[in-house]
C-alpha cells in the first residue's frame, strides 16, 4: 500500500481562524472534516513567530538554536537536514508548492536557489551530495513557489506577469518605495495592508497554489509514495483577497475579538505590565523588526480597522479551505484519499487586534504562538480514534512525524519525537515542554526572548538588549488567564513556578552555534 503525505500549511493563521477550533466566522468545512477524522491539537506552538525560522524547524525537526535560522533573512544552509530529503532518498516523490521561504525573498543578486528556479524554468536544482549522488534542492524534486504578491522572481509572479500582466499591480505592494513594510491603508477603514483587490479569484495565489498542487498530484502513479507540501501564502498580510469575495463577511457586522481591550487606558495598563518592548511598539517609539510597518503606530489602530482586517482574514481563510477542498477532491477521485496522511498547520499567528496590535513581532502570547494543527492519519495505514490533544506540542515534532508515517526511523538530526495520537501518549513520547526563541537586531534594536510552554504555563525570559537588562519577563497561567492580561513574572507567589520553568528551559534549550549566521536580507 503506498504511503502518502499531504502537508498543508498556511501563513500567519490564528488558532481561532478555523471552525474546528471554535471560530465562528470563517466557514472551514474541509479542514473541520479532516479534524473530525483525526487528531486536533489545541496547543501547537512554533519554534519562532516569524516565517523563515518556523519553516526551517518544520523541515529540519530542529530548534532555532540548532538550525541557526534565527530571524527572517537568515538562509537555511543548503545542506541543512531535511525530512523531504530523507523521504526522497527512500524513493518518495517530493514536491513543495506555494511558499517555501527557507531563503530570503529580498535577493537582488539572485544568491538563493528559491529565487532562481522560475527564471531558469526549472522545478528544482540537483547538487552532488557527499556520497556522490545528485540530489534535489532540500529534497524537493518539484518546487513551484509563490509568495503574497505578484512581484519578484518566484513561479507565481512569473506566471502572473506572463499570463495576466494587468493583474500584477492589483495586489497590494507589501513593501513601499523605501523597501519598508508598507503602512499605506486601504479598504473602507484605511487599515494598513488592506486593499480592495480587483484581481479575479482564479488568478489569486491561493487558487494558483491549489491548481499547481492538483496538477502535480495528477501526474503521480497509483503506486507512488509521495510527500506534497502545499503551502498557501494566506492569510498573511497583505489583506487583499479578491474583492469578488468580500460579500462573504461584512466587517461592519463583526464583533471585536476577545483579545481586544476597548478602553485605551486599560489597554496601556496591560501593556505596561509586560516587558518594555510591548508598550514601546504600541506607541511607535520602539520598532525593532521588519514584521510590521515601521511607520505605522499601533496606538492609532481603530476598532473598525480591526474589524475590517479580521473580515479580510476570514475571507482568506475560507478561500484556503475551498482550495484545499479541490485538492482533497482530486485525491478522492483518484481513490487515494484513504492512503493519505493529511497534516495541516501554519508557521505562526497574528495579533488581529489583540492588545490593540496587528501583525507580529517579539511577543510570545497566544495570538502568535497558538496555532492550528490537525493530523489525519491515513485510514488504510493506521486505525486511529479521532482525538483532541491538549498537551502542548511543537512544530519541531513535524519532521519526526513524517518519518514515522513513512515507516522510517526517527532521523538522528531531529530534536523532538513525533506528534502524539492522544494525550495519554504524549508524556511517553517526551512532550513535556515546547521552546520558542526570538532574536532580532534590525534597525540596531536588539530584542531576544526565550520561552517555555509547559502544561498551562507560558514563561518568557528577556535577554539583555536595547530595552531589556535581562531581568524582566512574562509568566502567564493560561488556565486562569487565557488572554494573557496578567503578567505574573514579578509576582512573589509565583516565583517558584517561574524559577522552575526557567530552570527547565535553560536546561533543555540547545546551545546556539557561534558565530551566528549572517542575516542577508530583512525578509
Amino acid at each position, binding site marked *: 500500500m503506498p504511503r502518502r503525505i499531504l502537508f498543508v500549511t498556511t501563513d500567519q493563521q490564528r488558532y481561532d481562524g478555523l471552525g474546528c477550533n471554535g471560530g465562528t466566522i470563517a466557514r472551514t468545512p474541509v479542514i473541520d472534516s479532516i479534524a473530525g477524522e483525526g487528531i486536533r491539537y489545541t496547543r501547537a506552538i512554533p519554534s519562532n513567530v516569524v516565517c523563515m525560522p518556523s519553516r526551517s524547524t518544520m523541515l529540519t525537526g530542529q530548534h532555532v538554536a540548532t538550525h541557526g535560522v534565527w530571524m527572517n*533573512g537568515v538562509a537555511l544552509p543548503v545542506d541543512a537536514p531535511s525530512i523531504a530529503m530523507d523521504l526522497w532518498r527512500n524513493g518518495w516523490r517530493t514536491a513543495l508548492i506555494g511558499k517555501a521561504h527557507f531563503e530570503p525573498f529580498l535577493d*537582488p543578486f539572485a544568491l538563493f536557489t528559491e529565487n532562481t528556479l522560475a527564471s531558469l524554468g526549472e522545478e528544482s536544482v540537483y547538487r552532488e551530495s557527499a556520497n556522490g549522488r545528485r540530489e534535489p534542492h532540500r529534497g524537493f524534486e518539484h518546487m513551484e513557489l509563490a509568495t503574497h504578491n505578484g512581484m519578484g522572481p518566484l513561479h507565481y509572479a512569473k506566471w502572473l506577469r506572463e499570463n495576466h500582466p494587468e493583474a500584477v499591480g492589483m495586489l497590494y505592494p507589501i513593501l513601499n518605495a523605501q523597501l519598508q513594510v508598507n503602512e499605506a491603508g486601504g479598504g473602507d477603514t484605511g487599515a494598513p495592508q488592506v486593499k480592495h483587490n480587483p484581481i479575479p479569484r482564479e488568478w489569486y495565489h491561493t487558487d494558483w497554489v491549489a491548481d499547481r498542487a492538483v496538477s502535480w498530484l495528477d501526474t503521480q502513479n497509483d503506486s507512488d509514495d509521495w510527500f506534497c507540501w502545499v503551502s498557501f501564502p494566506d492569510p498573511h498580510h497583505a489583506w487583499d483577497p479578491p474583492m469578488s469575495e468580500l460579500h462573504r463577511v461584512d466587517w461592519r457586522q463583526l464583533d471585536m475579538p476577545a483579545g481586544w481591550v476597548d478602553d485605551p487606558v486599560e489597554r496601556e495598563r496591560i501593556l505596561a505590565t509586560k516587558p518594555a518592548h510591548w508598550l514601546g511598539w504600541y506607541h511607535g517609539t520602539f520598532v525593532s523588526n521588519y514584521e510590521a510597518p515601521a511607520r505605522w503606530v499601533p496606538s492609532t489602530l481603530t476598532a473598525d480597522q480591526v474589524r475590517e482586517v479580521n473580515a479580510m482574514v476570514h475571507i482568506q481563510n475560507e478561500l484556503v479551505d475551498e482550495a484545499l477542498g479541490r485538492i482533497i477532491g482530486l485525491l478522492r477521485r483518484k481513490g487515494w484519499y484513504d492512503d493519505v496522511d493529511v497534516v495541516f498547520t501554519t508557521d505562526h499567528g497574528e495579533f488581529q487586534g489583540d492588545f490593540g496590535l496587528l501583525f507580529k513581532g517579539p511577543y510570545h502570547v497566544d495570538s502568535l504562538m497558538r496555532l492550528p494543527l490537525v493530523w489525519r492519519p491515513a485510514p488504510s495505514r493506521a486505525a486511529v480514534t479521532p482525538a483532541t490533544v491538549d498537551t502542548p506540542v511543537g512544530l519541531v515534532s513535524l519532521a519526526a512525524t513524517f518519518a514515522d508515517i513513512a515507516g522510517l526511523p526517527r532521523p538522528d538530526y531531529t530534536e523532538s519525537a513525533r506528534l502524539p495520537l492522544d494525550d495519554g501518549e504524549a508524556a511517553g513520547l517526551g512532550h513535556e515542554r515546547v521552546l520558542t526563541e526570538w532574536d532580532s537586531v534590525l534597525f540596531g534594536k536588539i530584542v531576544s526572548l526565550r520561552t517555555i510552554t509547559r502544561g498551562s504555563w507560558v514563561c518568557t525570559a528577556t535577554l539583555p538588549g536595547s530595552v531589556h537588562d535581562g531581568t524582566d519577563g512574562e509568566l502567564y497561567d493560561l488556565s486562569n488567564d487565557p488572554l494573557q492580561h496578567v503578567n505574573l513574572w514579578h509576582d512573589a507567589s509565583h516565583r517558584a513556578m517561574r524559577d522552575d520553568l526557567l530552570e527547565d528551559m535553560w536546561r533543555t534549550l540547545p546551545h546556539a552555534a557561534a558565530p551566528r549566521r549572517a542575516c542577508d536580507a530583512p525578509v
Partner: protein
Amino acid sequence: MWGFVGRPELLHEWFPISSTRVEGDKRWITLPSGITFEEQILLVDNDLRRFQYSIINNPLITRHVGTVDVIALAADRCIVVYGTDIEPEVLGLAIGAAAGDGLRTLRERFGEG
C-alpha cells in the same frame, strides 16, 4: 590583490553580478536578477589601495557609497574590507550578502595566503 580588485571593470569576475561596463568614471553593473545599476566611480587610489563608488540615478536608492580597501598584512598576505553606506538601509543586508559571496570568491582565487 589590489591589481585585481582595484580594476573597476573586473567586478563581475569576483562579485555576484552578470556584467560590468566602464566608461570613464562611470560604471554600469547588471545583476543576475536583471537589475542594472549606474555607478559613479569616486576614487581609485593606488597608494591607499582604496576603491570607492556610488550608485547614482536610481529612484530607489537615495544615498550610497561603497568602499573596498585592500590592506597589506605582509608581502603575500592582505585583508579586503568591503563597506556599504546605503539608504534604504535594508538594502545594506542584501549588498552585504553579495559582498560576502564576492570576498569568498577572492579568497578562493588568491588562496588562503
